[in-house]
């Protein structure tokens, strides 16, 4: 009798001890969501959007706080996350500067320093010209560059030695001539410079140029992906995102996608990673998210775990190769 009581008590205590371990990890204080870029850009928009829908649909008990750490082309944000090992209440959203900033400036960080969580989407790049430009197709434009002198055509882009300039180098390779690359602070500025005809072309992300395209100020020449985009709803009077041909089909051997992925601090436990993966899976099912994806014509690939880490490793190798051939590596 006594023994069974003791056994029951031991059992109960054991159950109590096991219970918290079996229960999944959950944030116990507000989660800091670091954006390694300024306010208003693509990564910032996505982070604030996530903050909004997560709060609205109560996907998490604790609030998410978006913090911009844009110093040193994002190095400030990545170093901050790298330096917060073991703090599960800090996550970061990436741009291509995850690869380009350490390669170009030799600031010491690498994606392997962080814990990969999930790929949310991939951002596309489109080659744009002004709607009044004489170049109707990507082929026209490339042959015009070929015929002209070096540096005759001007390409505006965001930042220096980052994704936009890497793509510019790919276009240069296709044409065999140099372009004048002019760096600006943000994608919005870049699009407006093209609308104002201060430059000849840009490689804006869809969401940065969508409004100008819709109002007939810009012309989309080609998209830097292996296949045309899947979005068939008409955006302009005559075209949908799906109607833009790939750059490959126009003879520009440029395929480039930008990672919109989530990483967390070093030494995160599998439990903690699982919580965030689950959170983003739930978020992807929301109608608001689907609408956001369509508006920005995103490539909606989702990955987590080893698959994600492998993808990032491959993307890193691709960036090293591209930046080496462009001469962008820090000495």
């Amino acid at each position, binding site marked *: 009798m006594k023994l069974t009581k003791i056994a029951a008590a031991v059992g109960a205590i054991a159950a109590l001890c096991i219970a918290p371990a079996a229960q999944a990890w959950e944030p116990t204080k507000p989660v800091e969501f670091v954006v390694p870029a300024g306010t*208003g850009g693509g990564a910032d*928009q996505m982070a604030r959007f996530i903050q909004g829908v997560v709060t609205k649909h109560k996907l998490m008990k604790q609030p998410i706080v978006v913090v911009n750490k844009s*110093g*040193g082309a994002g190095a*400030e944000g990545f170093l901050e996350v790298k330096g917060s090992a073991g703090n599960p209440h800090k996550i970061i959203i990436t741009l291509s500067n995850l690869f380009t900033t350490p390669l170009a400036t030799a*600031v010491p960080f690498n994606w392997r320093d962080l814990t990969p969580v999930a790929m949310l989407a991939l951002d596309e790049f489109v080659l744009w010209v002004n709607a009044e430009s004489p170049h109707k197709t990507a082929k026209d434009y490339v042959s015009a560059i070929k015929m002209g002198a070096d540096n005759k055509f001007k390409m505006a882009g965001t930042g*220096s030695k980052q994704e936009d300039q890497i793509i510019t180098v790919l276009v240069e390779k296709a044409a065999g001539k140099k372009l004048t690359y002019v760096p600006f602070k943000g994608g919005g500025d870049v699009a407006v410079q093209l609308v104002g005809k201060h430059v000849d072309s840009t490689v804006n992300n869809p969401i940065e140029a969508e409004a*100008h395209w*819709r*109002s007939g100020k810009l012309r989309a020449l080609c998209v830097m992906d292996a296949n045309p985009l899947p979005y068939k709803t008409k955006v302009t009077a005559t075209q949908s995102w799906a109607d833009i041909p790939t750059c490959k089909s126009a003879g520009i051997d440029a395929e480039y996608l930008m990672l919109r992925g989530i990483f967390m601090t070093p030494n995160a436990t599998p439990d903690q990673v699982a919580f965030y993966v689950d959170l983003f899976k739930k978020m992807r099912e929301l109608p608001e998210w689907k609408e956001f994806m369509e508006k920005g014509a995103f490539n909606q690939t989702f990955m987590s775990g080893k698959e994600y880490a492998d993808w990032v490793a491959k993307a890193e190798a691709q960036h090293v190769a591209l930046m080496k051939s462009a001469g962008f590596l820090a000495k």
Partner: protein
Amino acid sequence: MDELNSLFQGFAVAMTLPNLGFMLLGLVLGILIGVLPGLGGANGVAILLPLTFSMNPTSAIIMLSCIYWGALFGGAITSILFNIPGEPWSVATTFDGFPLAQQGRAAEALTAAFTSSFVGAFFAVLAITFLAPLLAKFALEFGPPEFFAVQMLTFCSFIGMSKDPPMKTLAAMMLGFALAAVGMDTVTGQLRMTFGYPELLKGFDFLIAVIGLFGIGEILLTMEEGLAFKGKSAKISFKVVWNTWRELLQYWRTFIRSVLIGCWMGITPGGATPASFMGYGMARRAAKDKESFGRGNVEGVVAPETAAHAAGTSALLPMLTLGIPGSPTAAVLLGGLLIWGLQPGPLLFVEQKDFVWGLIASMYLGNLVGLFVVLTTVPWWAAILRIPFPVIAPVIIVICAIGAYTVHSSIFDVIMMLVFGVLGYLFKKLRYPMAPLVLALVLGDMAESSFRQSMLLSQGDVGIFFGNWLVGGLMALAIFLLLVPAWGSFKDMLRRREASAHLG
């Protein structure tokens, strides 16, 4: 009068009871945010943005834009009372606002500041209402050379007429440029002058420098001079408001000039901070008694405040019509628009009439209600100066530290703020002017990128700055403004030499 019809419809949207409530809430929050240095309108809007996702977009933007108006109003309060600019664009307000407060005329300065804010914003909204499509087109004319010309014009209008020794002005300005160069060079993508310290990656933030130089520097100076505020005999009465208003009427020229400068800077988009400096510089240039500027001239408060608000308000126009934010706060609001499912751009005015005109109507109402709210609080703000210095000084230092920390959530910035405080103290003691340093710090970065972008575009040909009527005209005006005072002092020198020759 299509616009008038739409506007009245907008008023019908904005005048509903819940929307008026959101408006008042936004204004009060905004004023508090503006009073705390560092916690600017952009931060305030960013923090509150997620709360509005479940609201209807029109109510949400009304509340958020009212936070913006409130912050614009509130920024002037600490600048005038304690020489701490709550927002970057209130730096120029301290030049004459703080001396006024020290003379016991704080209430007068506050009234002038608030009223000018209202006037600037009101005329900018008028411009948005009736000239939106036209102005949006004008903004497209601005490429890198035009931006550089505007920045050059700001520099020239401000420094051309400095009464400080030219070498000291130059030294202060160069220091500002050097500080602005630290961090990432956006044109080459290389790090400059960080010496391997990750803390320096982000460069020196203008706000932290300003909080230190002005706020902490002033407290150090006051401590040396005997632990008391000079302005504690401030008159506290509503009569001041009426009397100041009567006085303000004579500055109608300054109002018009600053409104024009502000609207133009907001739309191009140059921003509210350069607009306030340019407004101040131009007013001093045009004034008969130039010497009184910087020593407590009400006109020196009117000019920058009017320009800053005209710019801050018209900055919303390029955001709505082109999707380019004219200010950091506008950038955060832009993110909000996307989340509410509204795509800013040329079609917003056509596709979302209710939203756009509701917003514009709320600008009229928000500013009017805001003016009323801040004017009624003038006596209370002025009364703060009666609190003994030993009590209020620690509070100010704590507020400064919190402000500096909020900018980037970094403790290193708080240390930098203290370093800048000591620098500010030394500047005052050695009689170096601080304004050129601050101006170079805030504009140096932008001017450098615009200049180098232009050089890339023209492949190194300086002729690009005279390439068309717009950029050429701006540059000519800038050079003219720079040379006029030089010519004046040259003539003075000649006259003096002649006089001494006669004497001899």
